């Protein structure tokens, strides 16, 4: 029987040598004249183990972690022993997950529509094609799905507004700008299971009466862009996209658009400006994009993970999805564990998992081996959390109660060498660099804030300057049109509140 061997073709895996390993495996197969086939997949999300090579066996796939080119011959000599991790599905990090959105990622060939279908793909779309738009939307509302891009707005409610708007043209826009530090789930999904996003967008189109979709992908993701383009071409060729979706009476097509290196273009109205070919400046709301969005037409704009959750909801039913989670946070959340952590990767679990479980049980503590001092959750606009709050469960409302947000699900770990005054300074610097320029506090106040933190770090009038930073945070919060300026106070104030010792004026000297 043909021996199947799997190597990820995912940007993170490639960044640590997966391509060379794949080539070495192909050469070894040829040299030995083996009846074996190399298959390129997405990543399993066990990123600390990349490049993770898997060999099919009657019991399941056997994994080999952190493989380099020199290790390759040994994999063929004694597959049972040389550095084997055993069955990949039994690795606790993966076994203890609830993979709905990432069910296929790392398992199938991302560009095989056939494999996509044989692993449960297109089932949701087939259901949707037999339903009315209203019924589809009610399923999404009932599932409790909330936007995974950051704001957590109920997806079905947004769709209702677009469905009710009268227009001859409506659009589905997928937000794949994924600018938050510590996040990579959108990228992994687009590279590892692109048809799932396509399926989710078609269902959204059918539900609200839109026939055209755009995926706005950041330019920092060349590999994801290439994969999505190829997947769209295949879907078109096989009649999944086009004038007769799956041979039926619905029509939907889509294209990829590329960002140009601006964090603010992840904000939905800025993204629309950018798609239309303008400076990515934030638009005041109202009008909501759902009513006047892309080219002035009613537009659904959703994050990759929101749209990719939809096929499962349609295939398995709203109740199935809703049964995962806690409180008003329903379903699963793909948490991304990153930074100074021993086992970084993607953890898809029902809401309710505590930060401690994420950092300690999955992550295994820091990569440096030093104590964890702080974690930043929810990207550059998210709060820094001290260890005494690590029992907080991953849930939109609980996080908000503790002045934090889960955002797009990024968790960035720092060890005890971190200087929190520097991190607060960086948050303000980042705000200044990425400001769209519309509001004065965001454009100019942020730079003043960074300068004030420099003074604090140099021990200059610490009490007075700290009060100044706090005042500035208030101005930012109240005087900003969007969350870039409005939420920059979160990392700054959480650093000040939870780590006051770093703002005592001596930190610079102490750290250096």
């Amino acid at each position, binding site marked *: 029987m043909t021996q199947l061997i799997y190597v990820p073709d995912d940007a993170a895996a490639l960044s640590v040598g997966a391509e060379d390993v794949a080539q070495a495996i192909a050469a070894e197969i040829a040299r030995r004249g083996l009846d074996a086939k190399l298959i390129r997949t997405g990543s399993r999300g066990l990123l600390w183990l990349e490049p993770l090579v898997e060999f099919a066996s009657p019991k399941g796939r056997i994994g080999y972690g952190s493989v380099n080119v020199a290790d390759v011959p040994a994999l063929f000599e004694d597959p049972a022993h040389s550095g084997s991790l055993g069955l990949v599905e039994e690795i606790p990090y993966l076994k203890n997950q609830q993979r709905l959105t990432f069910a296929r990622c790392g398992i199938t060939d991302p560009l095989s529509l056939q494999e996509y279908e044989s692993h449960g793909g297109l089932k949701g779309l087939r259901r949707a094609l037999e339903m009315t738009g209203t019924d589809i939307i009610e399923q999404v509302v009932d599932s409790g799905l909330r936007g995974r891009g950051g704001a957590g707005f109920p997806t079905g409610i947004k769709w209702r507004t677009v469905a009710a708007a009268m227009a001859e043209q409506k659009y589905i826009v997928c937000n794949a700008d994924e600018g938050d530090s*510590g996040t990579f789930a959108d990228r992994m999904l687009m590279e590892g299971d692109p048809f799932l996003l396509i399926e989710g967008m078609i269902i959204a189109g059918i539900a609200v009466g839109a026939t055209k979709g755009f995926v706005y992908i950041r330019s920092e993701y*060349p590999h994801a862009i290439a994969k999505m383009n190829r997947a769209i071409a295949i879907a078109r060729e096989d009649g999944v996209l086009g004038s007769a979706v799956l041979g039926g009476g619905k029509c939907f097509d889509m294209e990829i658009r590329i960002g140009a290196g601006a964090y603010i273009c992840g904000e939905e109205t800025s993204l629309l400006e*950018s798609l239309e070919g303008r400076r*990515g400046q934030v638009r005041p709301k109202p009008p909501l994009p759902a009513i006047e969005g892309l080219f002035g037409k009613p537009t659904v704009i959703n994050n990759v993970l929101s749209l990719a959750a939809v096929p499962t909801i349609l295939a398995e039913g709203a109740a199935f999805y809703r049964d995962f989670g806690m409180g008003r946070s329903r379903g699963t959340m793909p948490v991304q564990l990153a*930074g100074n952590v021993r086992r970084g990767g993607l953890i898809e679990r029902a809401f309710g998992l505590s930060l401690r479980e994420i950092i300690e049980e999955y992550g295994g503590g820091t990569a440096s081996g030093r104590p964890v001092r702080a974690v930043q959750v929810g990207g550059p606009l998210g709060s820094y959390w001290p260890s005494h709050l690590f029992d907080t469960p991953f849930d939109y409302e609980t996080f908000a109660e503790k002045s934090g947000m889960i955002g797009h699900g990024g968790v*960035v770990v720092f060890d005890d060498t971190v200087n929190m005054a520097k991190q607060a300074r960086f948050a303000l610097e980042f705000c200044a660099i990425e400001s769209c320029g519309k509001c004065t506090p965001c454009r100019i106040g942020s730079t003043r804030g960074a300068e004030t933190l420099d003074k604090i770090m140099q021990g200059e009038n610490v009490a007075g300057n700290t009060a100044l930073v706090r005042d500035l945070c208030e101005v930012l919060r109240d005087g900003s049109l969007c969350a870039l300026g409005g939420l920059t106070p979160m990392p700054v104030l959480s650093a000040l509140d939870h780590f006051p010792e770093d703002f005592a004026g001596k930190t610079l000297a102490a750290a250096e």
Partner: protein
Amino acid sequence: MTTAIHKAPAAAWNPDPVREVAERLKGLDGPLLPILHAINEQFGYVDERALPIIADMLNLTRAEVQGVVSFYHDFRRAPAGRHVVKVCRAEACQSMGAERLIGELEKSFGVTLGETSTDGRVTLEAVYCLGNCALSPAALIDGKLFGRLDAAKAQAQVSK
């Protein structure tokens, strides 16, 4: 786009490819960014002289096109070095020593962050997250993503 690699010095200025690109893409919905990306990739930067041509073909003012070019970090106003190193300095990479790495890269390439070395060999730039945050520190070197990067690896890549 970030994948642009320029081994040869940028070709002498020629307006024809700009017209061709604009002609080919102007039928898209919202064609300006795709056109600028294509030009940025083909020439390695967006020449001042391309702006009136694009403006004219899209029925925009030159100032409008200029405003768009200057808004986005991706569009270069001058050719880059033969190698472009875009190193991540966002939070996850900071937690794994990105600032130290940047210092080492500045030293080994003989260049300050944001600039091109005087011999035109390397441009060193900051980026904010490359989606490789579990394998920090990360960088894009000539469009190729690297994880768990150190200065020696980066130097070796640029010397290839």
